[in-house]
């Protein structure tokens, strides 16, 4: 604290220039470069794996890794949209701080549609239920097991290519509607005076409240179609909720990185206070806890039941070398962020908090690898090296890098601070009020 606390009894001044600083263009260029490099690596790896690996699954691995990239970037984009709606409903200074970055995240939805189209076009190469049109015949020729044949036939009304396309596109349409509407209103709100604040708060609450409910349903549908249905035999009622929490986890981690990196220059240099940084760290910590709570709850219930119908999903992901991955998943996804975020000092230290958040995003991708790869016959209960498996690094990195570049473009599109908000005055005050 400055010695002359007479001056600190006055609020800080909001800078005149509220646009994103110039170095965001630098981030974008760097992200584009990484995206191009890893795209090239991914294609080379696919050809290499196709030629060298005994299973010749280069392009299959490419598509599986693509699904990981899709799920990850979808979490940033639609998760960002949802966090935007959550902060409109909850209020709070952290929400004002994150509003513009979250809006920029929500506006990246067209790229996610593009990513999805690749999965939708190659749906027959990724999903057993799409590939097998006649389960009876496939069972007779020993391509699938009896339980798989039964499940494919039984779940046909839901798991068919038409439904896959239409449900996903409907979900995208709904999310796009919310993203466009909230973004347009967000800009309109700032053109009006403070007397309109009560109207806007109600308006955003009404849109967002219903939006969060609809999000949780649509997001569950897509999580089931895109990832869970890779294993036709298995289901879990907490699956959607797990993805919901995962999206909160990764969105907060990403938003913290963005906000703390932006605070090197105006306007975030002025509006970012240690108090809100600490609050964001605590909120992230809550998601770390909630995630392990649900993930372990699912495991404990299935482990206790020990039913042949359910337990195989876990056995596929524990036996044959996967025990190492699930242990590391536990360490990366919960133990490391949990123990580090417990520390008050760390949450108040910009550099260390950013490092933890970067690690958390890596952990999300690692967890998705554990979720996706054992769905396939060649990998279930059989973790082994192949050139193709390296696609799980190359493809998601490239896809996320392109997403980040697109995000940076969106971040530059409008001022970084929402001004027509009562929290703005509070956030400009000194950390603790001195009358």
């Amino acid at each position, binding site marked *: *604290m400055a*010695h002359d*606390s*007479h001056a600190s*009894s006055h609020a800080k001044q909001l800078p005149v220039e509220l646009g994103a600083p110039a170095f965001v263009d630098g981030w974008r260029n760097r992200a584009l470069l990484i995206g191009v490099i890893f795209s090239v690596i991914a294609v080379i790896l696919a050809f290499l794996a196709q030629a060298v690996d005994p299973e010749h699954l280069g392009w299959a691995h490419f598509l599986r890794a693509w699904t990981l990239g899709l799920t990850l970037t979808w979490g940033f984009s639609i998760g960002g949209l949802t966090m935007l709606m959550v902060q409109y409903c909850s209020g709070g200074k952290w929400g004002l701080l994150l509003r513009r970055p979250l809006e920029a995240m929500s506006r990246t939805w067209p790229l996610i549609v593009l990513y999805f189209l690749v999965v939708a076009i190659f749906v027959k190469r990724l999903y057993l239920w799409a590939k097998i049109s006649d389960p009876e015949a496939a069972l007779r020729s020993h391509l699938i097991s009896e339980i798989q044949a039964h499940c494919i036939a039984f779940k046909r009304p839901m798991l068919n290519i038409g439904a896959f396309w239409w449900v996903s596109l409907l979900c995208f349409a709904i999310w796009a509607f919310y993203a466009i509407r909230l973004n347009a209103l967000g800009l309109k709100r700032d053109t009006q005076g403070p007397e309109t604040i009560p109207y806007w708060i109600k308006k955003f609450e009404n849109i967002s409240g219903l939006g969060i409910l609809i999000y949780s349903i649509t997001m569950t549908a897509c999580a089931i179609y895109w990832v869970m249905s890779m294993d036709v035999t298995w289901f879990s009622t907490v699956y959607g909720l797990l993805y919901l929490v995962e999206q909160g986890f990764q969105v907060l981690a990403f938003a913290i990185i963005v906000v703390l990196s932006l605070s090197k220059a105006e306007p975030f240099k002025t509006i970012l206070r240690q108090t809100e940084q600490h609050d964001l760290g605590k909120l992230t910590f809550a998601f770390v806890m909630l995630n392990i709570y649900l993930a*372990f709850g699912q*495991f*404990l219930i299935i*482990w*206790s039941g*020990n039913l042949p119908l359910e337990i195989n999903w876990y056995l596929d992901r524990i036996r044959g070398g996967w025990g190492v991955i699930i242990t590391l998943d536990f360490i990366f996804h919960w133990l490391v962020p949990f123990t580090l975020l417990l520390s*008050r000092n760390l949450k108040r230290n910009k550099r260390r908090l950013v490092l933890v958040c970067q690690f958390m995003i890596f952990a999300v991708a690692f967890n998705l690898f554990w979720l996706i790869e054992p769905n396939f016959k060649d990998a279930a209960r059989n973790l082994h090296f192949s050139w193709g498996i390296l696609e799980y690094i190359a493809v998601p990195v490239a896809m996320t890098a392109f997403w980040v570049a697109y995000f940076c473009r969106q971040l530059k599109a409008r001022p970084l601070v929402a001004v027509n908000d009562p929290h703005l005055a509070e956030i400009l005050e000194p*950390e*603790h*009020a*001195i*009358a």
Partner: protein
Amino acid sequence: MPAREGTYGLLAEFDTPGDLVRAARQAYQDGWRRLDCYTPYPIEEAAEAIGFHRNKVPLVTLIGGLMGGAAMFALETWISVLAYPINSAGRPTYSWPAFIVPAYEWTILWAGLSAGFCMLALNHLPALYHPLFNAPNFRDGATTDKFFLCLEALDPKFDLVQSRSYLEGFKPLSVVEVEY
């Protein structure tokens, strides 16, 4: 402990937290160490001004939590493996996933209890008496709208006359001498 007698300290009363923080910061800079701030609501600057220090509550909480978790996990293991081994659906007697939830609950319970009791112990609570209650303006103002700085007589710099004029230099509403 025998009852102390004599002067506990000098109590300066301020109208605003800003005045209190400025006075406290100056006093700390001038070498005062046995001093304390009393405010109707938490003011972190005041704590920083008089040399904010870390206490042992987080450490005790951590140790309490770990001990609670370990104790429950050990208890469950002892019951299931040694004391009453029961074949439950063919699972091994040492079935750790089933032990996690009670162990976790005990971690939370013991961390919470350790934090609470450690805080009370370090604050020397419960205390039925504090010398400052002898000052009428403290009784009236400390929980409503007044901000107090107390220079304690235990400080080697303390001198009844000089310290009073020192405190009056901060332009407080009043300076009163507090007896034990």
